[in-house]
């Protein structure tokens, strides 16, 4: 049997889009499904007026600044807990108790504590990102091969050198898995937080469009969030490929 060509993957989405466009034009589609061409035109108009870029920039700023804080803290504490016994004994009980808890349910309480502005959104996203990154860094550092550490120590490496040259590189692949989960979470939480309380941002844009029942604007915002989420994920994967150069040799990804 011949292997289907690569473009086969585009068939189903294109068919659905065509069906959607046709039925919307003939007025057969429900109100909440405006024609894709209408959505695209609206997107062009909002791009030209700069409105879309403004909302997107606000959202990206919130999500990425919180992602950076959460990822840095998670990686630092996780690596420290994975290498130093005292740190592990302090953090592990707390984290393993709270990790499976859906912390986003505390969103209304965080809004009460930190107000409805940027800070509360950044706090809740930071917390959401911290956990997966911490877990990945912790288990990544823990999984460092003992033999490598012994060998380095034998050759006279100091504690810091062992950390930089052995623990870090061996924890890195897993750390990137945690970062990827955290990045996806940061966009989800950002969207919900903005939907509930914001004056700007893509989540706000959707809430605004919902009030005005402007479905075309809603889809523009949804598509933008999708594009940004997808782009950020691809960017992270590209960074990962660079950072892990030489470590992915045996895996399917390097091929």
């Amino acid at each position, binding site marked *: 049997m011949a292997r289907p060509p690569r473009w086969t993957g585009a068939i189903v989405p294109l068919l659905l889009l065509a069906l959607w466009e046709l039925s919307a034009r003939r007025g057969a589609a429900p109100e909440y499904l405006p024609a894709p061409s209408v959505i695209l035109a609206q997107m062009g108009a909002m791009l030209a007026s700069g409105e879309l870029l403004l909302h997107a920039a606000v959202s990206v700023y919130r999500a990425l600044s919180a992602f950076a804080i959460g990822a840095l803290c998670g990686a630092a504490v996780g690596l420290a807990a994975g290498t130093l016994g005292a740190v592990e004994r302090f953090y592990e009980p707390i984290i393993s108790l709270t*990790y499976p808890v859906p912390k986003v349910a505390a969103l209304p309480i965080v809004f009460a504590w930190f107000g409805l502005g940027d800070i509360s959104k950044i706090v809740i996203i930071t917390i959401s990102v911290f956990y997966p990154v911490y877990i990945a860094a912790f288990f990544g550092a823990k999984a460092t091969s003992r033999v490598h550490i012994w060998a380095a120590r034998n050759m006279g490496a100091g504690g810091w050198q062992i950390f930089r040259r052995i623990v870090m590189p061996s924890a890195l692949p897993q750390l990137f898995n945690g970062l990827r989960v955290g990045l996806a979470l940061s966009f989800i939480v950002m969207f919900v937080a903005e939907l509930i309380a914001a004056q700007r941002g893509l989540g706000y844009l959707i809430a605004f469009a919902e009030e005005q029942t402007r479905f075309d604007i809603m889809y523009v915002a949804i598509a933008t969030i999708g594009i940004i989420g997808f782009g950020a994920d691809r960017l992270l994967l590209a960074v990962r490929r660079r950072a892990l150069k030489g470590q992915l040799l045996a895996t399917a990804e390097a091929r």
Partner: protein
Amino acid sequence: MSTAARAARAAGRGLVANYSVFVALVAYELISRSGLVSPRLIPSLVVIAEQLWRYTLNGDLPYHAGISLYRAFAGFLLAAVVGVAFGAAMARSRWVEALFEPIFSFGYPIPKISLYPIFIFVFGLGTGSKVALVFLECLYPIAIHAAAGMRATDRVLIWAAENMGASRTQLFFRVMVPAALPTLFTGLRIALPVALIVTLLTEIIGESRGLGYFITFASASFEYARAMAAFVIVAVIGFALDRGVVALRRRIVFWQKDTPPIA
């Protein structure tokens, strides 16, 4: 050594091993009682416990917890059935794979929750839209892992089964599903907390029932202790589900070692 003494020593050891949890709780209580912050915003643990007791006894918290759990599990189970079917089809047929695999791999990093406002229009504000979104969010990890697991089934095992005259159903349930089980389990384990998170988030966005609604409503009425009491229930549910999955994994895929939650 008497049993009581042994129990006391075990409790003491547990206390020492988990000392940081108690440090955190005591720090919280001290902050709450310091007078520097409003005790309404950061209520004492005693007050939270009182609220928890009251709203558990009057049936409010169990009622809302039941609704949230029902939504999360309905969406999760639907996604499990459809996801495993899709994964199996993608693993068995090259054409199905070529047609649908890109949808799963490209759609994976897209935050699907942004479709929720549309779902409200399609399925209504109640349980329907929530179950639908939980289903969509859970479908991705389950289908991707099911496909990966079944694709990795040892060819020799399939040939052997076919040679011994296994039917297609037999081949599926007796060979491919068990071979894919460890990977499939990873997907289910990723999806279950997602189901709970999505349910709570959508209930926070808009609803009149469920734990997410309860927390939002209590916060909006400035009853933060009541909101935190509900959050304690959320925490217990999340923790219990995780323990349950780990225990199930030890039973069902007993030949696999425990792995960290993110691997």
